[in-house]
């Protein structure tokens, strides 16, 4: 690995080879370590113990804020969180005709009850979802449906909001990057959503989305004659996640836009001038020059946005209470309300692993750590 790196970079920087690579290389290595030292000291002093403790605690049944004795439970916490069981539901047949029974009220076919089929040992599985596949009915059971639900909510939330933020942030960055008169004030105005304190912003949106006409959105929709009765944005399942995504997109698009803008502004202008002379149109320039050059900045912006989105807590906690969980708000619920610190730590580790997977795939896709 080290050999390969040396080879690659010596190709790129032949100047060093002539002056004796080993000596200079050693000096460079020593300087690098010195420069990394402050960051490493901070990591060791502040983050090392808490992180190791989380890993360790996730294998125990430790109770939060108590003197109770803790014992090692192996993978029990993980098993409880992640056990999922899929099984087929048999149709309930009419005894005389052999046909499947149909509910006389709803007209729906009747299947056996999920609770009768799902395993009870070693832990009870509860119904999470039913689905049809090739004419057969299946049920998904999980030992902790709240957590599985939290994982699904968080993943949908993350993918949708980060994607919208990337597109919107890129558009805003491109607009602000072109020269116009009030560009400076525009940059300051652009940061306002990011600057509003997160907890307060969640309350502010909760008020705007209030389920009666004291809320801005219901008052507006009513004025426009779009709705007959106020919409309960945050109470009903179909609007909940979309509302939260809208809030998050508003709040964090500036973060994305500003990072991409900084990337745009370190691009040398002469490349674009050369492209102009060669007759490349604006759109061609964007796809051939801007996007490839923006990749590193984009990778970093995506990593940190995704990282925050996967850990989303404030807006779920403030706006939805405990009606719908994200992974991190379920984590909070388990730690503070149930004082189940072992389980909460296991949730933390699962989030950690998920974030790691996302980070690695961004880096591989966008080549953020290439030499």
């Amino acid at each position, binding site marked *: 690995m*080290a050999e390969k790196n040396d080879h690659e970079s010596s190709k790129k*920087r032949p*100047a060093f080879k002539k002056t004796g690579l080993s000596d200079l290389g050693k000096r460079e290595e020593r*300087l690098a*370590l010195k*420069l*990394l030292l*402050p*960051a490493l000291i*901070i*990591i060791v*002093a*502040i*983050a090392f*113990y*808490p*992180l190791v403790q*989380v890993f360790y605690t996730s294998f125990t049944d430790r109770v*939060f804020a108590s003197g109770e004795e803790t014992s090692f439970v192996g993978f029990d916490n993980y098993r409880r969180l992640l056990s999922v069981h899929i099984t087929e539901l048999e149709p309930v047949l009419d005894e005389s005709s052999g046909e499947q029974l149909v509910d006389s009220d709803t007209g729906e076919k009747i299947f056996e009850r999920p609770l009768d089929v799902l395993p009870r040992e070693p832990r009870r599985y509860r119904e999470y979802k039913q689905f049809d596949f090739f004419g057969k009915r299946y049920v998904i059971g999980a030992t902790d449906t709240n957590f599985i639900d939290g994982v699904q909510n968080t993943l949908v939330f993350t993918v949708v909001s980060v994607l919208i933020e990337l597109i919107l942030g890129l558009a805003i960055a491109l*607009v602000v990057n*072109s020269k116009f008169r009030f560009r*400076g*004030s*525009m940059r*300051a*105005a652009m*940061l*306002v*959503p*990011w*600057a509003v*304190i*997160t907890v*307060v*912003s969640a*309350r*502010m949106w909760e*008020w705007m989305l209030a389920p009666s*006409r004291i*809320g*801005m959105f219901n*008052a507006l929709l009513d004025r426009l004659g779009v709705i007959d009765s106020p919409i309960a944005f945050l109470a009903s399942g179909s609007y909940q996640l979309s509302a939260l995504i809208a809030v998050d997109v508003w709040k964090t698009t500036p*973060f994305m836009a*500003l*990072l991409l803008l*900084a990337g745009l*502004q*370190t691009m*040398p202008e002469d490349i674009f001038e050369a492209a102009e002379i060669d007759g490349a149109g604006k759109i061609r320039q964007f796809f051939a020059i801007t996007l490839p050059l923006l990749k590193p*900045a984009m990778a*970093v912006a995506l990593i*940190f946005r995704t*990282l925050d989105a996967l850990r989303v*807590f404030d807006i779920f906690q403030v706006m939805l209470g405990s009606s719908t969980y994200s992974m*991190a708000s379920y*984590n909070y619920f388990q730690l503070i309300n149930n004082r189940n610190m072992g389980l909460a*730590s296991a949730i*933390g580790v699962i*989030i950690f692993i998920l*974030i790691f997977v996302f980070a690695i795939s961004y880096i591989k896709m966008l080549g953020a750590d290439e030499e």
Partner: protein
Amino acid sequence: MKKKASISGLLKRAGFNFMIIFILFYLLFPFYWAVNSSLKTESQLFMTPATAVPRDPVTLEFSPTFQNYSAVLTDGQFLRGLANSTIVATSTTVLALIAGSFAAFALGKLRFRGRKPAMYLILAMTMFPQVTVLTGLYAVITALGLSARISMIFSYMIFTLPFTTWVLTSFFRGLPDALMESAQVDGATPFQTFRRILLPLTAPALVTTGLLAFIAAWNEYLFALTFTSIDPSARTVPVAIAYFAGAVARQEPFGEIMAAATLVTVPLVVLVLIFQRRIVAGLTAGAVKG
């Protein structure tokens, strides 16, 4: 022919301006609503339908109130919170920028073994949800015997240091190697090259990451709530707002929360206005000849 071109140019200009207005409206309108709510009394807040400016419930005339602002400003908690937040967020940003830019220079421009592991180690520092690391962090801070303000500054490193390091690394890597080589030929040590040449060139990135990290530290709530529990005089703005919301027995003072939110957002905007001049376009253009 010429006239046609100028019409299309005019249309382009109009389209561009429309886009800017649309973006500004989208980004600023919710904040306007917060300002609007902060100028309303409780009864005005509960008017149906909600009004776009504070209006008298009976006569519907324009009648803003400043009672929320005076309530917030006479609350000593809030002003002390502002001072605390300024100290904590500024120190956090400075520390994260110094340690981060050093590390980023090493990671982005120097060759050494263990570069990738070091990058991932720094990122791993911030991959746990805050709630999870809170107990461990609390134990560390008690063991080190740190005061509330210092604890906040150090614990905020968890999310600011990986951020500044990674962003700056990507920017350092983008700078041409020729810069370092020509400086080296001129007899500059690598560290001089870093301080005199590379650092000024990444000014846009430094200002951007600094602002983003500052705001992240300014807005942090959970760590601040935990570490100031023993020392209320160290409370930062988000915690102070949460407390004056809970201190009153009657309904939550929504107008006051919005007034406080407006009051803390304005200095940040001013800060950005001051620093944004440093985000100058095309700094690297012409830095390397040939």
